[in-house]
Every structure is written in C-alpha cells, then in structure tokens.
C-alpha cells in the first residue's frame, strides 16, 4: 500500500491536473459534475498523501537521509538536462499533507460560499489546477521543475484573483500579482540559470551535496555564490510577499474568499518559503545570504504588522498578517532553522485558513460589506464562526496551547539562539540577530493587538450596519471551520519540545543533525506576556472602550496616515510605472517612429528626391535623347581607341583580331 503510493506519488499532482483538463475541455457546462470531479480528485490526492505520510513518518528519519526519488528525463541535450519526477522526503510529505488537506477543505467550503455563481465550474477548474501546480512544486526533484510549477502557481493565482473578471479591480489585482511575482522570477530564473551554469545540475539532491563544497566544483568565490543566492532569493521574496514585493498580496483579496484562504494559507505564498527551505543548504553555506534572508523576513514581519494595525477591511488585515507571518518564516530560515520555518508554515496554514474561511463566512453573512466598522456584535448571530475565529486569533497571537504558540515560540527561540543575547551564538553576525530578535518580539505584540482589534470590532459590541441581518453560514461552510479549528489547537503539540527524539516535529523535519531543543522558559513567558499585552490593549481600546483609538490617532496623525496608506508604497510603484516605465515606453515609441523609422523613411525620401532631380533630364525631346545617345557612342569610341585594341572593352564589342 505504502510502496504503491510512494511509487505513484506522481499521481498526486496529476489527479487535480486531470480534473482541470476534464473540466475545461468537457464538463464545463455541467456544473455539478465538474464540482464532483474536482473535489473527488483532490480527495484522492489527499488519501494518497495520507498513505505516503503515514508510511514516511512511520519510518522516522529514514526518508530524511535517503529521500525517495523517481525521475524521467524531461528533455536533455549535451550540457543541459532536466529530469521530471518526484522527490519524497519528510519535508515534502509534510507539505503534501498540508496542501491537500487545506485544498480539500477549501474546495468543500467553496461549495457553500460560491453557491450559485455562474462560473462555478471554471472556479473549480482553476482551483484544481492550483492544487496540481502546488503539489507538483512540493514534490519537484529539480529546481527548474520547481520553477515550472512555481510559475503555474502564479498563473493560477492570476486566474483566481481575477476570477470575477468583470470587476476592473479584480483584473488589475490579478495582473499586479502576476507581474510582481514575475519581477521576482527574474531573479529566481537568473539564479537558477547561474546555478546550472556553475554547477552543471539543478537537481536538488546533487546541489545540496555540491554547494557546501562549492570551491571544489566551481570557480566561484563565496561572494559570487552569495550574489547568486541573493538573486535567487528575489523569487521567493516576491512569491511570499516579502518587502518590497509585498504589494500584490493585499490586492489579491479581490478574488473570492476561498481563494484568499488557499493562496494565503497553504499554497502560493508559502511556496517561496518552501523553495528557500528546499535549498537552504545554499544559504547556510553563505552566512551573509542567510543574514539577508533573516533581515528581509524580520523587517517584513514588523513592517506588515504596523500596516495591519490601521486597516479597516477584514481580508486586508488578514493579508497583512499573512505577510507578517511569512516574514516570520523567512526569519526562521534566516536563522538557519528549517524546522522552525516549516513548523510555522504548517500551523500557520491551519489557522490562517481558518481565519480566512471565517472571514469568508462573515463576508457572506454581511453581503460582502468590506469595512469592519460596519460590523459588530456578530457573536450572537454566528456563534460557530465566532468561536472558531477566536481560536484562529488566539493561535496567531501565540497563546498557549494553540498552534501558533509553539511555532512562533520556536522561531523566537532559534533567532534568540543566533543572537548575542544567548551568549553562545555561532554565526558571524550575532549583533544583527539580536536586533532581528527584538523586531520579531515586537511583531508578536503587534500581531496580537491587531488581530484582536479586528476581532473585537467585528464580533463584540452592537451591529453597526442597518441594512443586513447576518445569519450563520451553512453546514458545508462551518464544518471545515470546525475541522480547521481543531487542527489549529492540536497541530502545535507535535512540536512540543518535550517530545524528544523520534517524536517531535523537529526530528522529522530538519536539516542536519537533530538537536533537542531545550524549552527556554524565559522566552516562553516573554512571548506569552507580549501576546497577552497586545490582546489586553486591544480589549481596552475596542471592547471595553477604556481608551479611545481616535485620541491616539489625533495624537500621531502622521504615523496613522503612513500606516493606513501602507507607507505609500503602492503609490510609489504606480508612480514609477506610470511616470517612468510608461513614459519611457512612450518616448521610445516616438523615437522608433521618428528616429529609427525616420532614418528608414529618410532613405526613401532621398531616393524620391533623387528621382525628382534626375527626372528633369527626361525632357521629352527625342532629339536630346538621340544627341546624348550618339555622344555616348563617340565617347565610347574615343575611350576604346585610347585604351588600345586589346582592352577587354574592345573584346566585348567583337574585338580586334
């Protein structure tokens, strides 16, 4: 059973891909059938993943040391050969489980959420393709194949964000997402190409062997390889919404809410984190590149949190929180810990999916009213949503015993370990990591604050909107919420540091030797305190109304505006695009028309002008023509008589014997 599943792991992405093909080609008109095919295939993939998962986890870290790999040649030529296939190890198994699980739930949830939408079949086709691409990415054995699925994920996000293409904002957001990711892909592709050229292979396993000893295999210096690593990292930055490529992610909320859940929780955005995790060896070999990753991660985490504080739309707040959490994951990678990053990725997938789906229920109930200031007191209308949402908020805030507590604590711990505060840091930049640690801690506080700000505004107090009468969502939507809620509670426990060797998450998903993490009680208390402080503050501001948020805003209007307008980064980009790139294009166009074409036309004009001048010679007088003709004869004769009888010209005319 396990062997069968393992040998046929390639079926996991193929099932949803087939669903996409079948739906687009044949069953598009039959909505019910399409939906069943889509959900059926993703469940099949899920079952396969579970079988593989049980088998792999049952064998401890065997697959970590000896991953299962099955490949066929995709194309090859001397000097460049790419294999396609599957690479199953503990990390990819974890991702497989998370992705298929979340996708299945989202697809079921969409049955309710998207009910009655005329494009339902199309929606399921896209989601299936999305799942297929993400699953393909997860098990890809090769960086180029990863890139292939990476781009397909981008395509699907484009299609799904722009699902309601009638809305200009949706199609613009889709475009923005794709193009922003493309800008990052420039770096990723460049990095991949440079790796291929220098190492002669893109196979993940071979690379992970060669990179630590790169001086043996290539002529690269450490600085050169660092440059490659940082260039490569541009791709994950864009995909995972890291500063300064984060702009597409909040806009991506234009898509249907289940899509947001899918993109932000389990699939697209974590692809960047996963890719960096897959080639973490490269970064660990190069401390500067690692520090770069950490800085970007920590900065993004803090930066997005400060924006999230002032936003007024539920999905926007969640989007910024996603950016922030992705920053955490990057920070964990930057602290050289694959375990912490993947652990947070997993728990985040559960609670963020929960939060998004919960937000979807709220939006559904409020008839797509976006502003949270119109909500209020939803607790009594939608109890299931309320309780599950509360679980999600507690989890993301990092309150014991919810999932976020364990993973966030682990990240803080590994960052702390790399900083000079711990006293036994090994890397070359302990001071930098100290700063990063402080940033992460501050972010933890902010996260708790803004999540509960939203929570209290939405679910407590009185309903402010008069137009709608909110109702609890149907079962098909709430059941996934409950399942996710359960996972948001329990999934953290797998990372409980006390579980020890052979049990803990850190044993299964790791890079290098397993090290038992001692629980750092100081840190645990600190982070819990910070989270509670954030929650308490939010409660005082927005529930008990002890303090007025308005007063604080009036005290620092500049900071508020800066945060509310997302530091004007979108405006800045727009300005660049409209005033620099578009103008540049326009200018070059004019250059092309008037200068390049002008030269071409100039030659034409010259010929015409020459014609106008030369045609005057044509007087129409036959006598002129004859005169000139005979003058020519005389000239020729004279020429020939002076060049001699043996000249070639004479020869041409018959010649002198």
């Amino acid at each position, binding site marked *: 059973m396990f062997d069968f599943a393992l040998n046929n792991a390639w079926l996991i992405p193929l099932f949803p891909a087939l669903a996409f093909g079948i739906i687009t080609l044949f069953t598009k008109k039959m909505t019910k059938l399409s939906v069943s095919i889509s959900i059926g295939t993703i469940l099949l993939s899920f079952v396969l993943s579970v079988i593989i998962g049980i088998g792999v986890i049952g064998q401890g870290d065997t697959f970590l040391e000896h991953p299962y790999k099955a490949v066929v040649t995709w194309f090859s030529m001397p000097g460049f050969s790419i294999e396609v296939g599957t690479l199953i190890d503990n990390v990819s198994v974890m991702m497989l489980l998370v992705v298929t699980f979340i996708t299945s739930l989202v697809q079921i949830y969409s049955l309710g959420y998207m009910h009655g939408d005329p494009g339902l079949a199309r929606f399921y086709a896209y989601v299936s393709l999305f799942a297929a691409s993400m699953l393909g990415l997860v098990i890809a054995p090769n960086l180029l194949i990863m890139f292939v699925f990476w781009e397909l994920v981008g395509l699907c996000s484009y299609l799904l964000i722009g699902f309601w293409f009638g809305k200009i904002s949706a199609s613009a957001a889709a475009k923005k997402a794709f193009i922003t990711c493309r800008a990052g892909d420039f770096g990723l592709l460049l990095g991949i190409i440079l790796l291929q050229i220098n190492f002669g292979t893109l196979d993940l396993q071979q690379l992970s062997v060669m990179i630590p000893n790169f001086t043996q295999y290539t002529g690269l210096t450490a600085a050169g390889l660092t440059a490659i690593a940082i260039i490569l990292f541009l791709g994950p930055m864009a995909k995972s919404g890291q500063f300064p490529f984060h702009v597409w992610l909040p806009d991506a909320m234009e898509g249907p809410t289940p899509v947001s859940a899918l993109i932000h929780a389990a699939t697209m955005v974590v692809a960047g984190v996963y890719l960096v995790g897959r080639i973490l060896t490269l970064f660990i070999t190069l401390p500067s590149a690692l520090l770069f990753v950490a800085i970007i991660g920590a900065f993004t985490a803090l930066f997005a949190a400060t924006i999230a504080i002032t936003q007024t739309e539920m999905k926007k707040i969640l989007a910024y929180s996603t950016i922030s959490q992705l920053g955490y994951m990057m920070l964990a990678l930057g602290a050289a810990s694959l375990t912490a990053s993947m652990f947070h990725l997993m728990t985040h997938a559960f609670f963020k999916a929960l939060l998004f789906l919960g937000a979807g229920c709220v939006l559904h109930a409020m008839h797509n009213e976006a502003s949270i200031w119109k909500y209020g007191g939803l607790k009594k209308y939608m109890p299931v949503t309320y309780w599950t949402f509360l679980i999600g908020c507690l989890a993301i805030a990092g309150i014991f015993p919810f999932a976020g507590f364990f993973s966030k604590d682990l990240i803080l711990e590994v960052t702390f370990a790399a900083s000079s505060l711990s006293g036994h840091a090994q890397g070359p930049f302990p001071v930098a990591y100290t700063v990063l640690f402080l940033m992460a801690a501050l972010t933890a506080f902010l996260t708790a604050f803004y999540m509960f700000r939203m929570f209290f505004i939405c679910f407590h107090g009185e309903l402010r909107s008069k137009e709608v009468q909110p109702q609890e969502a149907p079962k098909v939507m709430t059941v996934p919420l409950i399942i996710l809620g359960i996972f948001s509670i329990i999934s953290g426990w797998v990372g409980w540091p006390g579980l020890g060797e052979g049990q803990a998450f850190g044993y299964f998903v790791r890079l290098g030797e397993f090290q038992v993490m001692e629980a750092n009680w100081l840190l645990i208390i600190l982070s819990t305190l910070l989270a509670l402080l954030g929650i308490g503050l939010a409660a005082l501001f927005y529930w008990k109304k002890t303090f007025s948020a308005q007063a604080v805003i009036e005290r620092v209007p500049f900071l508020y505006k800066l945060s509310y307008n997302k530091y004007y980064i979108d405006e800045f980009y727009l300005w660049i695009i409209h005033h620099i790139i578009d103008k540049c294009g326009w200018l070059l166009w004019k250059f092309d028309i008037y200068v390049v074409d002008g030269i071409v036309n100039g030659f034409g004009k010259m010929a015409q002008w020459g014609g106008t001048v030369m045609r005057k010679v044509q007087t*129409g007088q*036959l*006598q002129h*023509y004859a005169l000139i003709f005979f003058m020519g004869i005389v000239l020729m004769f004279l020429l020939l008589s002076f060049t001699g009888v043996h000249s070639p010209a004479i020869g041409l005319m018959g010649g002198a014997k």
Partner: protein
Amino acid sequence: MIDILMDKFLTIGLEHFLILSGTLFFIGLFAVLAKKNVIAVLMGIEIMFTSVNINLVAFNKYTAAEALLTGHVFAIFVIALAAAEVAVGLALIISIYRQRTSTDVQDFDWLKW
C-alpha cells in the same frame, strides 16, 4: 609618300565609297538631331537609309563577291522598308499635326516626366 597618297586618292576603291556613305549618313543624322521641322527630320532619316545602301552594295562588290548579290538584295529590302517607313512616318506626322497643329519636334514632348 605623296605618290602613294595620290595613288590612294585617285584609285577609287572601297574606302572611298565607305567614306562617302559614312559622311552622307552623318549629314542625315545632323538633320535628325538639329532640325526643328519634323519633316526635315524625316528627310534626314531617308538620307541615312540611302547611305546605308551604298555600304551594302560597296561591300558586296569589293569584299563579298562570292556571296553573289546578297548585298543588292538587302539594299532592295532596305529600300522597301524605307518606303514603308516614310509612309507610316508621314501618316504619324500628319496625325500628330492634326492634334497639335505643329510640326515642331520640340513640341512633341509626351515622353517628358
């Protein structure tokens, strides 16, 4: 030297006829190139035709007697041609004259740009 030249001068041979016919030809050409009246041009052409015939006959006599009288035959053909030519040429001239009321070649400038 003088004797030889004198001898050449007085013994009428092929060269004399050739120079005669050539000169006549070029006088005709002069008319073609330099006269305004289109009928004078036509007359120049006729002169040129005849001068060519002298060549044909002279060559036939001095250099190609073995070819019997081929030169004469061709001279006759040329004469026939000249007759046809002058007929058509005059017809054209008259036709043009009816349209333009002019016989001045400089007015016939349709070939102009």
